[in-house]
């Protein structure tokens, strides 16, 4: 299924947009105008790759600096070991469309820490 996500103009070059599907997807707009979509959650531990540092076609995780190739999802630098899942992207009439991959995602161990669920057990 292909989903219209947001206007490309909403993502300045060099920036990323976190699309809140389950699991979340990060859409990157590179400095030279390419658009890529990968799973937003780092395959190492719980960090959002949309918060990371984009350089060329590579994103560096904001927590422990694993690097992923946006084109293939490949790990370019550890500690991550597993590639991040990629999704097909198309820009149609200025709107970013993402076709979600049907492969299984490589999510980090443990349920994603999205909120205070972790800390409210005591109450």
């Amino acid at each position, binding site marked *: 299924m292909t989903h219209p996500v947001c206007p490309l103009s909403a993502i300045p070059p060099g920036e990323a947009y976190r699309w809140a599907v389950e699991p979340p997807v990060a859409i990157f707009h590179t400095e030279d105008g390419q658009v890529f979509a990968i799973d937003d959650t780092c395959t190492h531990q719980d960090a959002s790759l949309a918060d990371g540092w984009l350089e060329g076609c590579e994103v560096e995780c904001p927590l422990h600096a694993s690097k992923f190739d946006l084109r293939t999802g490949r790990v370019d630098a550890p500690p991550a070991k597993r590639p991040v899942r990629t999704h097909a992207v198309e820009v149609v009439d200025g709107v970013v469309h993402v076709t979600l991959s049907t492969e299984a995602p490589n999510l980090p161990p443990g349920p994603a820490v999205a909120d205070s669920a972790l800390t409210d057990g*005591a109450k």
Partner: protein
Amino acid sequence: MTGTGALRSIAVVGASLAGLAAVRALRGQGYDGEIVAIGAERHEPYDRPPLSKDFLTGRCAAADLALGDPDEDLAVDWRLGATAVRLDAHDRGITLADGTEIRADAVVLATGARARQLPGTGGLAGVHTLRTLDDAVALRADLAAAERLVVIGAGFIGAEVASSARSLGLDVTVVEALPVPLAGPLGVEMGTVCAGLHADHGVRLLTGTGVARLLGSERVTAVELADGTLLPADVVVVGVGAQPNVEWLAGSGLELAGGVVTDAAGATKLPGVVATGDCAVSFSPYTRRVTRTEHWTHAHEQPAAAVATLLGGTVDNPRREYAPAPYFWSDQYGVRIQFAGHRTDGDAVRIIEGHPDDRSFLALYERDGQFVAALAMNQPKLFTRWRRQLRVPAAAPALMTPGVSA
């Protein structure tokens, strides 16, 4: 010691984060001789940070902690469960606890650190420190049957244990000798903000309070504070810092000063011996101080510089200093804390985004009008951008080199 060509065998002592990073750097930098990696723990290299976080709460398992990658062929002779007890400076011979002798052309020291114990607390059941997987397994089992936890020490590991135990439903009290926890790394103002997380989650924090003794005959029953207060406890975690594993190097000719002393490129006083990770006391071009850094990123990245030093510094693989701004993170109560740079007393703190009360903000530390450090709670994106702007101060003095030419 000459270039790479002369080295046929290299021993890496300490098989954890820094040891594995050194092995990877050796192979990555083209060394194809023998590698022997000696590790006192019987486990393959694993990641420690989750031990106080997701592993303690049961959200991840021991298998998830593996640092190694099964698809990676590093051609290493791993000697696990083997403790090095002596290093001979002359022939770089290493003696193991069982008497085995290992000879190597070069040695990477990566023996890390161990948890500091509180004097007089040995032998009492229910009292824990947390450094290793075995420690974490034991603590996790003990917490499962406990109601009241007292954590001694409100540093990062103490605070993370408190947070994890609280999420498991325990009644938690944290005792800290300093008036403000984390005032060293973060300063009083931001240390106070971080300490506030405990109260947010119903954890008692007692500061400026020493511990007199632990009560109990076989198992701990309470912690007695210096002012006589009794804190009933089923489990006690002592989180009062770490000390480097370097006693075995006494008499080796290495300079030991709260760790193995090295320059910014990992070189020690002995040719062909480098030290890296938590066991090294290194000159930092960034802080212009000689310090023992106890953070994950340092132990993960610095070995590449130490290995380049060992391999001789060729044109293709030049000798390099490890110079980036120190960085660490901590996860407590669902809040991600990140810090980069170096703070000293007198630095001004300015919040440039968010508000500490919301547990989401970015603070900059400034000295003489210069940005020297950043602290964030739940602001990873903005933090990453500021962190990248932290560079070695322009007028860094010449390298301190303890008697080694590269």
